[in-house]
Structures are given as C-alpha cells and as structure tokens.
C-alpha cells in the first residue's frame, strides 16, 4: 500500500521524518530554495551574532523564528510546479525582509542594549505603528524605519508556531481578561503584561484596526510601551463618501504627529513613488487572481494569502517586493500558458472569513486530503483600489482608502453587505463549487452574522462547510477539530472519499 503524507510525520509533533519527495525536478528546486533560506538565516545570524543570541534568549517569541524552515515546509506541503516555486519565492522574500527588520529592531532594542547611546540614536528614527496599519504612510519618512510593532513579536510567531500565543494569552487571563475575547488582542496584552515587546522607537501610531478588541488592547499596551502615541482613527463605514474627509484629516494629523517626534519633514515625492510601486504590486496581485479564475489556478492557498497580508501591511511600496511579484507572476504565467496543473483539484472553494493563524497551512491540508483548492480567499482581498498619485490630495484619499479597506477591515466593517454580498460575487467570479466558512468563535463582528451566511448558502444551493476556529488559540479549538469539521462535511454531506486517507485523522497537537 502506498504511503500517505501522514505516514511521514512523527506522531504528535508532526515533524517530517524526511522531507517531501515531489519528483526529481521539484525536489531539487525545493532543496535549492531551502539552501537559499538557510543562506538568509545564516547571514542574519552572523550579521550581529551576540545581539541575535541575546534576543533569542530574551524573548520567548523568538524561539518560533528558529522553526521557520519547518514552517516553510508546511506552507509548501503538497505543492508542485509553479505553486511550489511561487510559494518558495514568496516565503524566501519574506524571510529576507523579516530578518532585516529584526536586525533593525534588535539593534535599537533598549532591552538588549540598556544605556546604549547608539541604540538611543537609532530609536530616534524608528516609527512604531500598530501592526494592522499598513506601513505605506511611513514611506514619506525615507530617513526613518517604520516598524509594525506587534507584527514581529506576535503576528508572525502565531503563524509560524501555533503554541506561541498560549503563554501570553494565559498571562492576559491571569490578569483578568475574559477568555472570550479574540486571541489576537489578548496575545498583545499578554506581551505587554510580560514586558516582552522590544523597547524601540521614538513614537507610536496606534489605531482602531481592525476591531473593538484591538482598540481596547491598545490601552494595555500603551501603559507598558511608554512612547508618545497618537491614535489613527480609521473610519468603519468606509463605503460612504461622507467619512473620507475625516479619514484624510486623520492621516494628516498622524503625519504632523510623526513629523514632531521624528524631527523629519514629510517627503511627498517619496510617498508618491511608494504609492506607484504599491499600485504595481496590486496589479501583479490582480493578475494572480485572473490566473486563479482559470481551470488551472496556479497559485492558491496558504503562501498566497500569507504573502498578501505581509505585502499589504509591511512591504507595500517596496521595490524588492514588486520585483518578487514580477518574478513569481512570470513563473505562474508560464505554467498557465503551458496548460499544466500539477495538483488534483476536486473542488474549487471560496475560503471566507479570517483564517486560523494556528493552522496557517490549513489550505494545504484541504488540497492534499480532499482535493479542495482555495481559489479565492477573503483574507487575500484588501487594499485593492489603485491610488491616484496625480496630486497630494488624491494620494491622501488613496492612502486613506487603502487603510479603510485594510486586512480584515475590507469585509468585516462597512456593513453586512460588504462581507455577505461579496461572498456570493466571488463564488460566481471564481467559478467555485463550495465554500469553506471559517467560524472564528471569538470574532464578535462576524459571529453576529453567522445565520445570514447559512441562509444565503442554503437559498443558493451552495455547499458550505463551517470550520470552527479560534484564530490563534490552539487550546480553544485544535487543528484536529478544524479538520474534523471538514471531514464530517466531506463524508456526510459531499459523500466523498479522501485523496489521502492518512490525512483524515492524525495527531499533530504538539506540532508547531
């Protein structure tokens, strides 16, 4: 009997006994990209060895970054051809950018360099922003580094290692935070309680992104971060023209605040250049979506949405990110032109609502186990309006629009119709035949319209599989339970047999 994917995993830890055999060509390609990743990691490690070791030993969340090769393997699991190449290129680009940012962070971190004049000087030119605020605005300060403050201690580790949030969420709950709040702000609160945020920056731009919980966790974080801070209030009813003026005024006010604390003058030409690069990045994304609308979608799943989130938040307006996009699109185009599709697709699924960070490679499992290809995902769709860079005002309106339609905001705010009607539209557009609906149990904004999704799918005769998850708390709902929801649906509703029976039920509770 041929072996399934789960046969190659160590029970409990999910660690592969040996790496995946993808056929000679793809395995060699994967090996070379793995070497490239290790080149990036070794280069980072050797750039500031003492500082980096101090950081690894100081911050619990840094341990997650040591598991990055394993994380990339999971994100590339089952991938072949252009999908594999796109995934590896995207991920390696992320690795190079993240390691660069970690170097900036740790060089300025007063926890690691207490009393250091050099670190103090570096901090004068570091702008901290809430991680759900895209960094595009910061491009107008080319002499400064804009750091998405919670991205590196919180968001990325939660993707890389499902257990990374657990300790911090426990801390929050020990201090009285209710267990029903979303794990994302709870994790942030826990980091603040433990003083486990790097001590960097000259000022902080907080925000109300994306939701009520994030507003409130800011209060707890502000107390520990101790930087001069200003709230960038991003309007919720973003579809209305009437709120746009306010959105722009908020951005202008934020710029004034940043000018005051950095001592820099805002560079509108630099912003313009960045906006134009961002427009090109968006166009590259649109092309990817066009290709995914075909019968042979080349680049779907985990690496696609992970990269999009990172690109939209952290590397919007970055020339290197655009270069990566163009390279990846060329790879994808070639495969589509050749009419190839090196994956077994039984179902074209729309994946709606926020995915579970604690199961970042859920899409890979869907495809490998049940042949469900994630041709379109809600989390992938944000900040898609092109910015008019012809005047300063039009640019500001464009940036304001980007912020209002940011990750999670684009669908969960603006009215029911934005999230519900958009689902049916995408279903048609991508010629889907089923929906995977994430039911993030602690997301109050979306949980409050669960029934409307159910009824809508029933009315349209669309098979919709509800997958319960708790964003990044594996102790609440495990990966196994998530898979269980899909298994039950595929077996009882769709009456199907799995592509790989070993992946139906397996133990990976201890897996990163």
């Amino acid at each position, binding site marked *: 009997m041929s072996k399934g994917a789960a046969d190659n995993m160590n029970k409990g830890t999910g660690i592969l006994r040996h790496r995946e055999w993808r056929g000679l060509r793809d395995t060699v390609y994967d090996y070379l990209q*793995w070497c490239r990743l290790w080149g990036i990691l070794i280069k980072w490690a050797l750039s500031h060895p003492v500082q980096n070791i101090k950081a690894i*030993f100081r911050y619990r969340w840094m341990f997650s970054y040591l598991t990055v090769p*394993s994380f990339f393997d999971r994100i590339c699991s089952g991938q072949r051809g252009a999908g594999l190449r796109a995934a590896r290129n995207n991920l390696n680009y992320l690795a190079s950018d993240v390691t660069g940012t970690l170097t900036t962070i740790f060089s300025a971190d007063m926890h690691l360099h207490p009393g250091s004049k050099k670190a103090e000087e570096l901090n004068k030119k570091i702008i901290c922003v809430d991680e759900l605020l895209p960094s595009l605005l910061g491009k107008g300060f080319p002499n400064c580094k804009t750091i998405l403050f919670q991205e590196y201690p919180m968001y990325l580790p939660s993707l890389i290692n499902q257990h990374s949030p657990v300790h911090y969420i426990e801390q929050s709950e020990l201090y009285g935070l209710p267990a029903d709040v979303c794990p994302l702000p709870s994790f942030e609160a826990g980091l603040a*309680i433990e*003083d486990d945020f790097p001590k960097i920056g000259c000022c902080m731009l907080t925000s109300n992104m994306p939701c009520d919980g994030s507003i409130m966790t800011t209060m707890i974080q502000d107390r520990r971060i101790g930087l001069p801070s200003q709230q960038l209030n991003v309007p919720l009813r973003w579809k209305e023209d009437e709120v746009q003026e306010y959105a722009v005024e908020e951005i202008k006010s934020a710029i004034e605040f940043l000018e005051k604390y950095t001592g820099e003058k805002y560079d509108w030409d630099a912003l313009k250049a960045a906006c134009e690069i961002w427009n090109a990045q968006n166009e590259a994304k649109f092309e990817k979506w066009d290709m995914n609308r075909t019968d042979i979608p080349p680049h779907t799943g985990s690496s696609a949405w992970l990269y999009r989130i990172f690109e939209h938040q952290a590397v919007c307006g970055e020339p290197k990110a655009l270069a990566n996009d163009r390279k990846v699109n060329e790879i994808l185009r070639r495969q589509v032109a050749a009419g190839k599709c090196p994956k077994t697709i039984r179902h074209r699924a729309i994946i709606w609502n926020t995915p579970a960070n604690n199961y970042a490679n859920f899409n890979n499992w869907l495809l490998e186990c049940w042949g469900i290809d994630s041709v379109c995902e809600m989390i992938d769709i944000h900040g898609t309006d092109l910015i008019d860079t012809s005047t300063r005002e039009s640019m500001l309106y464009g940036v304001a629009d980007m912020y209002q339609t940011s990750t999670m905001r684009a669908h969960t705010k603006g009215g029911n119709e934005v999230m519900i009607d958009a689902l049916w539209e995408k279903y048609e557009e991508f010629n889907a035949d089923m929906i995977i609906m994430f039911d993030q149990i602690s997301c109050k904004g979306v949980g409050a319209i669960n029934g409307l999704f159910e009824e809508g799918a029933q009315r349209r005769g669309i098979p919709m599989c509800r997958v319960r998850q708790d964003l990044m708390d594996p102790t609440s709902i495990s990966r196994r339970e998530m898979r269980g929801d899909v298994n039950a649906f595929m077996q009882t509703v769709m009456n199907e047999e799995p592509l790989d029976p070993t992946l139906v039920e397996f133990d990976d509770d201890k897996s990163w």
Partner: protein
Amino acid sequence: MKAIMIILIILVVLFLLTVLIYWFNLDTKIVKAIEKPMMKHYDSIKRDNRL
C-alpha cells in the same frame, strides 16, 4: 591544483551534508530537541509582570 581539489572536495562534502540535512529534516529535528530547555529557560526569566 591541489588547492582547487581541496576546495572541490570541501564543496562536495558540504553539498552532501546539506542534502543529508535537507532530506532527513535534521535542521527541524535539532530545533525540536532544544525546544524544551529553551522553554524552561524562558520560564525561569524574572519578569516585571503587570498591567
């Protein structure tokens, strides 16, 4: 010539080593092995926990 041979041998050895590490997932397994002591270390750090 000798130097080139030595360099070639080193490169071949490194290549084979990396292939071994890659194929048998040794990089991941090493990190897994140090996970427990690292967590113990983090637990032992004195912290200024407060709201």
